[in-house]
């Protein structure tokens, strides 16, 4: 069973990484705030507590690589493309939106980033794109999924084909211990490692809130996918520090406390208080200004 992520001391963090983690954090917090104020339509799934994973991943990707994302994808997008205005415009249906407001929070297609709202659906598609990369160059496909996604049969069809055909597919699992409201222990028999072993797919697991540690663990695996043109699964143990969607958290006080203790933010604030405080001011102000800017724009148009 996966317990709380515990870190004795964090390694020194680059300003770029910490800034991006904080930028995503404040983007997500702004969304929840807008919902509370009734200024946001529909729904959203924030990645609070998981921001360090896509920041760690994105530095290992090249411009030609494809990224497939899921319902909890704002961090995946913002770690790869520093375009919070365009993403916010998409979520709020304003001018300058990534997809003219049609896709919203969980259906984004921008350059080489694509997200869909159906669990597991993206993995077979990712295999197809990876096969094209294998044929045409050194690009790879990175597909983010959660632990809950492993209930879908499409995951296994995709893993099987990826391994059979040598698709350069890096599956990044953000294992946040909970699928909406169902603890992983109540929805997954066995383990992700065991399931990968069944297909002969290489699997690595990291349990750390340290962005450098996560990246360091992933780097050889990403290199293997690119060099050997084989699939691999990288499982990052994380905590979902926020609700599944908005105001729908039914976890107990103890469970919430454990999630909060496993949030990278708490660790970085403890170890690098001055660095966090300084950058946080900048990012908070930046996102506040972005919200003001985007919400003042005309509504998006779709023809």
């Amino acid at each position, binding site marked *: 069973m996966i317990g709380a992520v515990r870190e004795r001391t964090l390694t020194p963090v680059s300003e770029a990484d910490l800034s991006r983690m904080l930028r995503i954090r404040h983007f997500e917090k702004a969304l929840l705030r807008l919902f509370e104020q009734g200024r946001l339509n529909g729904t959203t799934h924030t990645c609070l507590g998981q921001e360090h994973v896509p920041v760690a991943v994105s530095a290992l990707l090249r411009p030609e690589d494809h990224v497939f994302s899921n319902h909890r994808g704002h961090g995946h997008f913002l770690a790869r493309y520093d375009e919070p205005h365009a993403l916010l415009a998409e979520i709020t249906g304003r001018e300058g939106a990534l997809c003219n407001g049609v896709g919203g929070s969980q259906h984004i297609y921008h350059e080489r980033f694509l997200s869909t709202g159906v669990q597991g659906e993206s993995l077979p598609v990712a295999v197809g794109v990876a096969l*094209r990369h294998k044929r045409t160059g050194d690009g790879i496909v990175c597909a983010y999924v959660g632990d809950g996604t492993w209930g879908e049969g499409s995951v296994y069809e995709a893993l099987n*084909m990826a391994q059979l055909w040598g698709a350069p597919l890096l599956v990044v699992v953000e294992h946040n211990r909970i699928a909406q409201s169902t603890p992983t222990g109540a929805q997954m028999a066995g383990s992700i490692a065991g399931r990968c072993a069944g297909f002969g797919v290489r699997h690595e697991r990291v349990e750390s809130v340290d962005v450098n540690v996560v990246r360091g663990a992933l780097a050889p695996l990403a290199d293997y996918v690119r060099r050997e043109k084989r699939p691999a699964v990288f499982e990052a143990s994380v905590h979902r520090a926020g609700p599944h969607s908005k105001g729908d958290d039914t976890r107990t006080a103890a469970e919430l406390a454990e999630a909060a203790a496993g949030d990278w933010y708490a660790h970085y604030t403890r170890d690098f208080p001055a660095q966090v405080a300084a950058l946080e001011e900048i990012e908070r102000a930046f996102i506040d200004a972005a919200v003001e800017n985007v919400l003042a724009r005309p509504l998006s148009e779709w023809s």
Partner: protein
Amino acid sequence: MRVAEHLNRSLHALMESDPSVHLLGEDVSDPYGGAFKITKGLSDRFGPRVMSTPLSEGGIVGVGAGLALAGDRAIVEIMFGDFATLAFDQLVNFAAKSTTMYGRRVDVPLIVRLPTGGRRGYGPTHSQSLQKHFIGVPGLSVYEMSPFHDAERLFGEIFASGTPAVFFEDKVLYTKPMLSGGDGLHTFELRDGWAVIRAEEDTEHVLLAPGGLTDRAVAALRDLLLEDEIACTLLVPARLHPLDVTPVADVLAAARRVHVAEDGTAGGTWGAEVARVLHERLWGRLTAPITHISAPDSIIPTAAHLEARCTVQPADIRRAINK
């Protein structure tokens, strides 16, 4: 040339002329060449562009969509059209939706070939005609092979449209000859995606049917003309949905009775959608409501005498038109 061989030659020609075309499916590689031999010779000739796959209908349609999205063109064969249900999510929620849900046009040049229909004794899960479940899905075209239409042209048309398509191929039609010119009684005319089969112009009766019904529809037309003295024109569209009746507007305008036949089971059918389209255009000129001929609301049994009861027969068509 039989329809199966024509399809096979069309795939050869398509893959020869367009190196971006990839084909995937269960048991499609040589020497087997697919359950119905439609892909014979392709893997020997085009190597890795032809892939025999695991039994993963949803997965392989997803892979096809991924190839299409990344710049290739993909044809996925699903061994029996019945199994398209296993790929429904990839077709409806990914391939079709992706053409528009990202706020701009995204091309997904993907063809999912579906060997379909009964009359071969394969039983309830290998004999269905599931066309109706794909009618009215935004961003998805529905085609059906006929003995009149050139399959290579249809495949080219689908790819050029950038809209993914399901392509139904009747399994008995595979064994029938391709048709052109006429049969001594009727002339066969092709115009803009439609085949027009008739013994004389401006007939009072017009029958619309997908390509898989051709043999039974033409048999019914023959009996109607020779024994009942009723002249009826048969219209066969290559694209069932969206249906564009403009190219055959003159034939329809002359009609006083219109009939629609299909192999799907009764209820929520393609034919009902055709009737809706035609009632809007022809209301006031018709002397009776549009007649609908389909399989009954039933599974398709295995034994030949039972199966015949649950699939559309020439006599069913003749009887409905003669009413």
